[in-house]
């Protein structure tokens, strides 16, 4: 049951959710708060599930979106989808749990994936005698060959050994995973050791996948393997992105299983990545369509439906002074659910200070004004300010300013063609900065038609 008073709303139901994968019971659960985006062609996650459903071959998909747009939620939806659970065995790999940001490399990622697959492979319920007997000897031999490299002794090849073999592989990867997580030296050692080259590791992962698939084929519920590799988007530095997705992209695409990877948002706009993954293989999760470029004050009907449903799952409607309060929170959130929750919380906090029994638009605006301080204070540097002004002026993003999307100083809207705007919480402030600059150009006798170009050049200067 959603929050029934202001305190419950503030402290129990309106906590910005840390992760879509969280399974604890002290926060509202995923099932409690999940609101599907309207079904149809506009929902990329639904489209992806459809592709997985209908494709005869192994689907490989790269998923991205802004922070809070629901990448992890999309992966979790795929994992939990009724259809997926029937036809696939989802193997979730949360890369950053093992591989620190700043140290990623496609070889290390392959080892992390191998560890996750090996763990599934070691589960006894798949080890029916018939299934194990049908495994080709060459395949088990290949897996045995890897054990010394994992620091484990290979068990003797005799009947019933397969369970022990997979348990040892799982143990070996468990130890390796710990080393990868904690030891710079180990990570470095692997990246310079030719034994662990990408080709060899691909063969290893594919061998594990093949073994798992063969066991699944003979299980009581035959399914296909589906790798869900989350957190790829966290490896956003140039070096890591290059290693994982530009040079390593083809390696990831050569894995013999359906796989979905998240990747950094900015890479979606990089031409080099387009050569690695076709447009069909890339999925961008847009924020819910909240506004149209021509009328930024009016919240679109689909966003109204989505956010009213979401609000309904979080707080009792009697705590909200009319739907316009929800609409305004949706507009200020730019369609990002986590920000929507944060804005509602700020509004409720303000309403409580005022001794109000419910949240109205005015208290919401006052509360969100406080949140704006977070963004304005983190926009102290001249470069960030120039970036914000550039976006406000042209509604597009250029090269040096992509990180502003990650920090949510800038948000992306999609109405047909994507367009960009300053975070609504600080849009008025930035618009004033630009208005001042426009006026100063007029004072400098710059022709009206040239002002925009002049300012754009000024904002973009190195």
């Amino acid at each position, binding site marked *: 049951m959603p929050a029934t008073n202001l305190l419950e709303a503030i402290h129990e139901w309106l*906590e910005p959710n*840390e992760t879509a994968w969280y399974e604890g019971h002290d926060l509202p659960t995923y099932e409690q708060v999940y609101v599907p985006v309207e079904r149809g062609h506009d929902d990329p996650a639904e489209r992806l599930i459809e592709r997985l459903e209908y494709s005869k071959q192994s689907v490989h998909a790269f998923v991205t979106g802004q*922070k809070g747009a629901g990448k992890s939620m999309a992966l979790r939806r795929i994992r939990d989808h009724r259809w997926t659970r029937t036809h696939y065995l989802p193997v979730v790999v949360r890369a950053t749990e093992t591989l620190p940001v700043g140290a990623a490399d496609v070889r290390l990622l392959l080892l992390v994936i191998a560890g996750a697959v090996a763990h599934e492979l070691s589960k006894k319920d798949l080890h029916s005698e018939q299934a194990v007997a049908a495994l080709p000897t060459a395949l088990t031999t290949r897996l045995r060959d890897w054990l010394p490299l994992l620091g484990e002794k290979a068990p003797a090849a005799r009947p019933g050994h397969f369970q022990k073999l997979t348990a040892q592989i799982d143990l070996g990867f468990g130890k390796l995973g710990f080393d990868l997580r904690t030891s710079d030296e180990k990570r470095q050692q692997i990246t310079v050791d030719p034994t662990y080259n990408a080709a060899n590791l691909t063969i290893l992962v594919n061998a594990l996948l093949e073994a798992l698939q063969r066991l699944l084929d003979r299980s009581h519920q035959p399914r296909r393997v589906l790798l869900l590799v989350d957190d790829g988007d966290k490896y956003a530095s140039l070096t890591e992105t290059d290693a994982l997705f530009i040079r390593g992209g083809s390696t990831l695409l050569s894995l013999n299983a359906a796989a979905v990877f998240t990747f950094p948002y900015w890479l979606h706009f990089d031409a080099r990545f387009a050569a690695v993954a076709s447009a069909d293989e890339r999925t961008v999760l847009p924020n819910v369509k909240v506004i149209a470029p021509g009328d930024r004050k009016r919240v679109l009907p689909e966003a109204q439906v989505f956010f009213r449903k979401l609000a309904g799952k979080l707080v009792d409607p009697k705590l909200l002074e009319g739907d316009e309060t929800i609409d305004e929170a949706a507009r200020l959130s730019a369609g990002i659910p986590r920000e929507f929750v944060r804005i509602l919380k700020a509004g409720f906090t303000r309403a409580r200070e005022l001794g109000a029994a419910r949240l109205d638009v005015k208290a919401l605006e*006052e509360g969100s004004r406080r949140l704006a301080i977070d963004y304005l204070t*983190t926009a*102290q540097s001249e470069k960030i300010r120039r970036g914000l002004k550039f976006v406000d002026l042209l509604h597009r993003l250029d090269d040096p300013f992509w990180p502003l999307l990650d920090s949510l100083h800038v948000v992306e809207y999609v109405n047909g063609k994507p367009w960009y705007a300053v975070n609504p919480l600080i849009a008025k402030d930035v618009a004033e900065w630009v208005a*001042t600059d426009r006026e100063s150009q007029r*004072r400098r006798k710059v022709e009206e038609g040239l002002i925009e170009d002049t300012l754009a050049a000024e904002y973009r200067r190195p």
Partner: protein
Amino acid sequence: MAGRAVRLAYPHRREALALAEELREARSGGYWVAVGADAGVRRAVLALLRRELEGTDVLAVRLSADEPGPWRTLGAKALRAKKAASLVMVVELPVVATGEDEAPGRHPVELLRRLNVGREIAPGRGWRVVLWTTLGRVPDLTEWMPDIWAYRRSVAWMPGSADFVDVARRGAVATNATTRYRVQLREAEGRLKWASGATRLGALLDAAQAAAELGLMPRTQRYLREAEALVQQEPSIGHEPLHRTLSMLLYFHPKRQSAEFREIIERYAADPIWQSADVTSAVVRRHRMEADSRMGRYAAVAMSDPSALLNLAGDCLDRGRLQAARVMESLAQVSSASGVQRDHAALTDLAFMDYHAGLIAQESGETFDALCRLHGAVWYFAQMQAEAMTSIVQRLAVNLYQAIGLRDEAASLRAQAKASGRGTDSRSIPDDKLLPLDRMSRFLDRAERAFAHHDLPAAGAALSVARDAWAAGDADFRSLYGLGRIRRLEARLLVTRGDVSSALRTLQGALASVEAEGLIHERFRLLVAIAALPPAADIDLTRYDAARDALSIADRTRYVEEEIEALLRLSAAARSLGRREEARTHADRAAEIRRQVGRRPPRALEHRP
């Protein structure tokens, strides 16, 4: 985190209590961010959290800059905590030098990244982690631990002077310009050995500027005196160098605070040669502004000179013309940066840019930014050894600290600020000789005094003169502060006649003008005036809304006295609407704040044009 804990100032205590409540009520682990550079404040907040969070283990953790496994360290700390209690960890993020001399440091990137990697550990284990950073380093968090930043439950803003100075230093230019000025001085002194006429004046000015930037005051003054003499002998040398001479004289002239010096400036001002250009003196500025020049034309003339533009920004600010002030400041920045980067701009320009940006930020309600910019200006002026200006800006910052309830910061800075020199004084000037802005101000004072003594006819008469004086100013640049004062007084007179509706309309008209300009403090004063109108059924809701808007402004500006005043008005308006419980809540809160901040300070921030 050993050491003496300080008593938390009201604004910090309020933030800390809100943080404590969030931590207490949170149903799960997660991240909070606390901002403040003062170690004493940090210790005091820690003590407050320990007091407020009874039954909770509150651990202070200081991570080292080269920490290879920060989560392992936090885990080890957690192991030592009481098992039964929920756990709060206040984690002080370390700072490393950036490599430049005395430059402000930053948080170590690798450490932030490692923390970001393990971002799900704290929520997963139920740890409530408070990450402690400083105002200037908050952007490091968004850049290097974006996920933790995205997950933050809230931010407790508790910055003090250490934060504002730190941010100011980040924006400030290191004095690597020293070498450049030494070269300039040597080269200019070389030219002085042979040059005459305009060339000599140029060399004198270059030498004076370089000497001033290097802090060589006697030499600066010697060159300026010679330049001054040269200008008097040969006024035909040209406008531009003359403007610079006069401008510099105002800062570096040995007698700059004397009446004799003002006479010199007045004499220059009277000379037709100055009618098309700008000089920096308040005296000259006022004469020229009020006499006949429209600011727009004036700006066009002054376009290429940053100092002239900044002076204009100051003039606009005096009149509450915030948007025009912003444009002038923006033009000055462009002008200063054209051809040379900010790193190489003159210290004088940089100092005045920060000074005016600080004033603009203050009038826009961006109080933190205002303090950062004012400290920036103090730093530049101190570098230039411009003591008078340093003290002026320091006193402005003192008023701001006082306004936001940081009384210790205010007292400490007040002790540094030197006593002010004699400013221009118009008291001896007869009424009919006064310039319109001064006349308006003088008659408004008289009208307010008369009103206070219940002499309504005298108040009305004085108000009428003030109104005429206000209308005599340039239509585009009439003082909006003056407008606000006039309308407030008009409204009070209307109320005495029982015409509350007209009073409301009068105030709402002024409010619209002030709102359009973005003058937040004047808007506050007008809203409070509306909220203070006598109760009447048809306007009670308007009074309530006005008080609520005023409170929202106080929330934004963080001015404590404004908050108290708005709360009291809101309480009264709520009572008029029959909302007794709400009225009591606001009155109690106002009383609680008053109790914490002590008696009301003098109204140093009321703008008196």
